[in-house]
């Protein structure tokens, strides 16, 4: 996102001595803020995790509970993320390719999970699937458990992550327009080949970007999952919940050791995002097309 417009180019805006000092002060203040507020917490995670030495760290992340939490986190992400990709593609196809009544309401509804507290999000599913909820007693009779079981964790994760893909794709596909797809249809391509041969190649970077955001959030989700999980060790604890449980048991080193895995996932997310932005120019494309129109 580096300066698309050169602000210092004009002679009129040539900075005075005073302004140059101001610039240095502002940059220093920003860097200091980031160092103290963002870098220090990350450094603290690793410092705490390794405070008892490497062997202790290794043993901590090799514990069976941590490994099974890691597996569950992976499983949940593998179900929730592809479903949300499908939803994102479907919603953005409907919204950007057709004109219908209530479109802006639909876009607003997609934003709901970003405004709702994760705790409330998890609780919604307790209301529907819990023992005191609408479907709970019936599900329990059929020996199928959603709340305090894996399906509830998957549902809560889907809820908190489903806007990400759609929100990346909608502005992107809007900016791209439908000319190429219409041309393909006119030339006789059927729906699926239009999608696979024209749409998907065009949106692949934006889709990947949204998917990474959704995956990152689904790995790290805590509040919503915490409400529906029941915290059953080895069965319904995801990695963030395992971190919480270890921490509350005063196993601080083990908690921070497990937290390093999540921190690494977050760092990988940031790096991947930057790579995609740099190689594909996803966001520039949207802005250029908006500028043209």
């Amino acid at each position, binding site marked *: 996102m580096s300066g698309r417009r050169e602000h210092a180019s004009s002679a009129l805006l040539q900075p005075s001595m005073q302004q140059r000092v101001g610039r240095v002060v502002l940059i220093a203040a920003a860097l200091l803020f980031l160092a103290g507020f*963002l870098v220090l917490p990350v450094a603290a995670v690793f410092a705490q995790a390794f405070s008892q030495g490497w062997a202790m760290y290794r043993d901590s992340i090799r514990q069976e509970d941590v490994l099974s939490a890691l597996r569950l986190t992976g499983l949940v992400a593998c179900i929730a993320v592809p479903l949300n990709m499908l939803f994102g593609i479907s919603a953005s196809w409907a919204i950007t390719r057709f004109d219908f009544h209530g479109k802006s309401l639909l876009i607003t509804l997609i934003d709901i999970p970003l405004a709702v507290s994760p705790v409330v999000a998890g609780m919604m599913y307790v209301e529907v699937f819990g023992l005191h909820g609408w479907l709970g007693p019936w599900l329990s009779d059929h020996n199928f458990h959603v709340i305090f079981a894996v399906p509830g964790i998957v549902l809560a994760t889907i809820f908190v992550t489903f806007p990400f893909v759609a929100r990346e794709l909608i502005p992107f596909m809007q900016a791209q327009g439908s000319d190429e797809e219409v041309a393909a249809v006119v030339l006789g391509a059927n729906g699926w080949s239009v999608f696979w041969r024209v749409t998907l190649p065009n949106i692949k970077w934006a889709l990947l970007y949204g998917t990474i955001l959704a995956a990152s959030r689904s790995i790290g989700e805590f509040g919503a999952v915490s409400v529906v999980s029941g915290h059953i060790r080895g069965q319904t604890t995801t990695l963030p919940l395992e971190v919480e449980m270890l921490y509350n048991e005063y196993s601080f080193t083990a908690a921070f050791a497990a937290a390093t895995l999540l921190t690494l996932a977050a760092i990988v997310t940031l790096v991947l995002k930057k790579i995609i932005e740099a190689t594909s120019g996803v966001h520039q494309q949207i802005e250029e097309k908006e500028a043209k129109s």
Partner: protein
Amino acid sequence: MPDKKAKKSWSLLTRSSPLPGVRLSMAFTLIYLTVIVLIPLTAILLHGARLGFSGFLHTVTAPRVMASYRVTLGSAAVASLLSALFGLLLAWVLARYSFPGKRIVDALVDLPFALPTAVAGISLTALYAESGWIGRYLEPRGIHVAFTPLGIVMAMSFVGFPFVVRSVQPVLEDLDPAMEEAAASLGANVWQRFIRVIAPVAFPALLTGTALAFARAAGEYGSVIFIAGNMPMKTEITALLIVTKLEEFDYTGAAAIAGAMLALSFMIMLVVNLTQWWVQRREGKRV
């Protein structure tokens, strides 16, 4: 042509399109949205409504609940002001200046989005606790952060400020230098240019970003509960109170408080949408 027929029977459509898939994509989108969002949302609201109006009011205004609103909304307000301040600073520096390591700084701003909230929570607690890297310098001076409302503010600012940066930064980057040049040529100094030229354009974005930061802070759970201390009446946030009620099997009470929180969320969404609508209308007029 069965395809054509299908398009005509879709009464919501306001303009026909040659593209296929309208029924499939609309149906999947609406069913998904209904199952994942609308039905569960209705369930919570109806359960809260079961209390009746006076019962609902009694539950959501009980002293412990009111205290949790004060803690949550007060901390969220302070945190979103701090987020606005530091978010604006970072957006400005990233949009206007070039310096070594700028790309890393730009990537780092998203860290609070990517870092799981539980990790942020335990890490901030470790930093500000009595023996922590920062706490050991603050505690002797009588500044207590961990397990006080100040800690809640810190955690909420951590998760909130990237919203401000990401709202304001693109607006500052797109600002036409010609406008500032014109102001400068007419004799405006730096401050006048900032107040008269930049601020009016950046303000709606700042408002949107701050509202999003406030929404996130008010609903935040994971990063707050570790550092808050969670003392009822003093440092107990509303989200935690809901969890406590659920653990006590008071589902109706939890649903009522959740209903109150949902009302707040929808109000913030309304503010954000109105701001965006206002900006679009203003820009439309200018063009």
